[in-house]
């Protein structure tokens, strides 16, 4: 039965959903861009403020759970969404056509993501995942007059639907074998050695979720969708969506013993190696920054899979730290793309040539970009290094030398394209410049957010203890 205490646990989710309704009614009454953005941001802030209440709640509603993993996931989802809203406002200012619905879609997707990280039952898992994905189709195809955006939306829709079919089939197989859909039930039913059917179910579910995380060989959609979608939608896809799905994968692996079999571990090891190397190799000669970041995110989730392979408390901590470092670096990198592309004027400024000599025009923007790329490359004194350090520690402490070798090789390859982008920022300016950020970008709310994120990348690189403490103190597995 639902009680008030139960509802407290999902208070953030309720607040975000309510904000979505308010925004919808507001749009129906009168269109006003700035107010919509402010209401959305206020709703997200309110949800963030209610997080302490939610984590203090004694019990969770049925089908859901508010353990450390869910709390960490929710906080990160809300923060990323907030940054996305801040960056979207200026970006959409120049869009011809309805602007306000973007926030509505975004809030719906955030609701889905919040449900996903807290789901404790295959039904909630599935519904939340769809609630996260459906608005994303709309967001990606939002500037539907641009051919690439439409292409991105439709491509994501079709491939995502196929992946969903895999996921459902896998769930059906597991259900047929065990007769229960909640994760705890699954865990107890599957204690005995897993048979072919439950393994097949697990693998199919992995395919479905691996698609959303763009694990090689399910990564083919990533570069096209990253390139085509409007920058804020891509940010959302690269951060919130991937983060929420990864949290669910972690939860599945840690709860259900079927995912614990050695055979599956070997499979995931191979996938992790393929993903790290594949993502980095494919990025090598990219000329389009958004595609490049897409491939880079593939590689980063390859590193993260190490945590799935190893498992245990340290792995949960690694997931938390690595996700934080990946998210802030990605937000900063895409944030610069958004700043340069806004206000919306057709295609985003994604070609590398747009960034040539940026440092001599917009030194601070180029500095933000440099910091974020250094962090993605895992260079010391940025947050990315702490993340990479954690993954290496995890691999070494468990003696997974293949994965450690993969990380080292992947990082070395990755440097090539990260450096290529960074040096482009500082090269002498060419005569032509088509895209530029407005002069007062730093005074706008989006620009300020971007600077804060960049400072965070540096601060967590120099003094990571607060982040580590925060992640380490969350009781990760509440089962």
């Amino acid at each position, binding site marked *: 039965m639902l009680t008030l205490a139960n509802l407290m646990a999902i208070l953030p989710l309720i607040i975000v959903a309510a904000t979505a309704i308010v925004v919808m009614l507001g749009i129906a009454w009168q269109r006003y861009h700035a107010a919509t953005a402010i209401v959305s941001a206020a709703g997200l802030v309110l949800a963030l403020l209610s997080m302490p209440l939610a984590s203090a709640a004694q019990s969770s509603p049925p089908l859901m759970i508010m353990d450390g993993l869910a709390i960490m996931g929710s906080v990160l989802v809300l923060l990323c969404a907030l940054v996305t809203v801040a960056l979207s406002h200026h970006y959409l200012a120049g869009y011809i056509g309805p602007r306000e619905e973007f926030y509505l879609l975004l809030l719906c997707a955030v609701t889905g993501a919040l449900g996903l990280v807290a789901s404790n039952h295959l039904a909630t898992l599935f519904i939340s995942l769809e609630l996260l994905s459906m608005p994303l189709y709309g967001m990606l195809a939002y500037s539907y007059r641009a051919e690439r955006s439409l292409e991105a939306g439709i491509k994501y829709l079709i491939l995502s639907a196929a992946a969903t079919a895999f996921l459902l089939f896998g769930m059906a197989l597991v259900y047929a074998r065990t007769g229960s859909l909640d994760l705890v039930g699954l865990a107890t039913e599957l204690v005995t050695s897993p048979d072919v059917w439950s393994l097949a179910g697990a693998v199919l579910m992995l395919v479905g979720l691996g698609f959303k995380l763009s694990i090689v060989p399910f990564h083919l959609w990533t570069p096209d969708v990253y390139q085509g979608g409007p920058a804020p939608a891509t940010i959302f896809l690269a951060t919130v969506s991937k983060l929420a799905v990864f949290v669910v994968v972690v939860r599945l692996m840690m709860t259900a013993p079927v995912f614990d079999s050695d055979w599956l571990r070997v499979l995931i090891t191979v996938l992790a190696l393929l993903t790290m190397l594949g993502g980095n190799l494919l990025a090598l000669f990219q000329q389009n920054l958004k595609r490049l970041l897409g491939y880079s995110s593939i590689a980063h989730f390859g590193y993260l899979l190490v945590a799935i392979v190893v498992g245990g408390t340290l792995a949960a901590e690694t997931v938390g730290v690595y996700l934080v470092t990946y998210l802030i670096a990605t937000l900063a990198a895409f944030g610069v793309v958004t700043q340069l592309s806004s206000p919306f004027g057709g295609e985003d400024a994604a070609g590398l040539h747009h960034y040539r000599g940026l*440092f*001599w025009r917009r030194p601070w923007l180029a500095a933000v970009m440099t910091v974020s790329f*250094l962090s993605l490359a895992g*260079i*010391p*004194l940025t947050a990315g*290094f702490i993340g990479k*350090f954690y993954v*290496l*520690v995890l691999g*070494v*402490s468990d003696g997974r030398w293949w994965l*450690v070798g993969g*990380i*080292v*090789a992947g*990082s*070395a390859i990755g*440097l*090539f394209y990260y*450096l*290529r982008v960074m*040096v482009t920022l*500082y*090269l002498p300016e060419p005569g032509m410049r088509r895209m530029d950020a407005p002069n007062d970008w730093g005074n706008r709310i989006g620009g300020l957010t971007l600077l804060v994120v960049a400072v965070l990348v540096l601060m967590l690189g120099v*003094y*990571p*203890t607060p982040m*580590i*403490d925060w992640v*380490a103190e969350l009781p990760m597995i509440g089962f």
Partner: protein
Amino acid sequence: MILVWLILIPFIGGLLCWQAERWSHQAPRWIALGTMLFVLVISVVVWLTGDFAPASANSSQWLLQWRAPWIPRFGVEIHLAMDGLSLVLVALTGFLGLLAVLCSWQEISDRVGFFHLNLLFILGGVVGVFLALDLFLFFLFWEMMLVPMYFLIALWGHSGSAGQTRIRAATRFFIYTQASGLLMLVSIIALVFVHYSNTGELSFGYDTLRGTDVPEPLAFWLMLGFFIAFAVKLPVVPFHGWLPDAHAQAPTAGSVDLAGILLKTAAYGILRFALPLFPEQSAAFAPVAMFLGLVGIIYGAVLACGQQDIKRLIAYTSVSHMGFVLIALYSGSELAIQGAIVLMVAHAFSTAALFILSGQLYERIHSRDMRVMGGLWGRLPVLPGFTLCFVAASLGMPATANFVGEFMILFGTFPGAPMVVVVASIGLVLAAIYSLLLMQRVHFGSEYRSGLLAGPDRREYGIMLVLLVLTLAVGLYPQPLLDTTAAVAGPVAELFTGSAELAVRAGEVN
């Protein structure tokens, strides 16, 4: 606290330089000059006041220490410490930093502020490497100094004949060193976890990890991880691919820093970390390392003879000289290790001088190609004379510091490995050949063009004179330098003999 300031001052100075460009073009140069002078003065004061007697039972090994907790989750501390060796190298960094600022006074004319930011960040990182005693911190500085070096080469470097070669050279430098650095990080982490499973204490501290009992096949691999990271930077021959390009394309200040101090970080790393952490494995590995050193000496010298580009020639001579250092470090003889330290200092002076001279030549004739030089002795006042002096130093002429270093290395290594010394001596002959070749092709012979070139101004004259005086001073009276570092070389040499004795004793027991 002095140690913290030694690291922080260059970083703060760098940021100031960046912003100072708004005021005037010259401001960053003066700020950078002041910053490096500050570092140099601090280290000289510490030198004059310090006590470098070998550590006795009640006194610490370290002259100065500073520690503070940093990442308690992994037992990482900010632990800085200085002994004679670090002091010498920090002072060297300050001095060469000063030269690097001075020699780019005319050469760098655009983006002056950002240039000096990168230059000072490199120097700050190098000082950090020399002072860090926590392995995590050491690795951090080790990797951190690569980024500004990358920008220095990629943005202010000379383009070679074909388009984008300076960016390619910079990228290659970065990837070589970063990838090998990650191998070292893996080794560090593995060492920490072996120590953790032995004692239950998670720590990256140098003193804590020394003497960790690592099971055998693993220990060898970990030692190799450290060795490869340092071998790439030194460079040891199969890993030297980045060096000639990086040196040739870098601006003069970059070459001075690279040859003068960045290469020394590798020798320092071997001396401070690779040998003491894995004494037995290193002793077993010593023949291989010495062989690689020999290959480096001969290979570097032979290739130097065939270069057309003056900076590439000097770069290859570095490979050759570092081969001597590598042999000395693995010889297990106190005399040879002290010789290696002297040679490191001497090489920093002579190579920096040669790079600065070739930079000054470039400013006058706009080429580094020796085919378009020749007969400069008649056309250019003063500088050819200086070149002759430093070429003589580079080939190890008595009375120069290089002679002292090479002589001590060969003398110290001989009792343990006579064959190595015999082969290494061939390198000395080759050194004479490439040095004279350089002199002949640049300054003598028929004049390629006629017309008098501008002589050195007071700044250039001063740089050369100071370097010359230092080279001769160390060459004629090396005792102060030897006294400062004596306390370091002894224990490292004992590690080898100690582990050899242990092996003998183990054999007797069996």
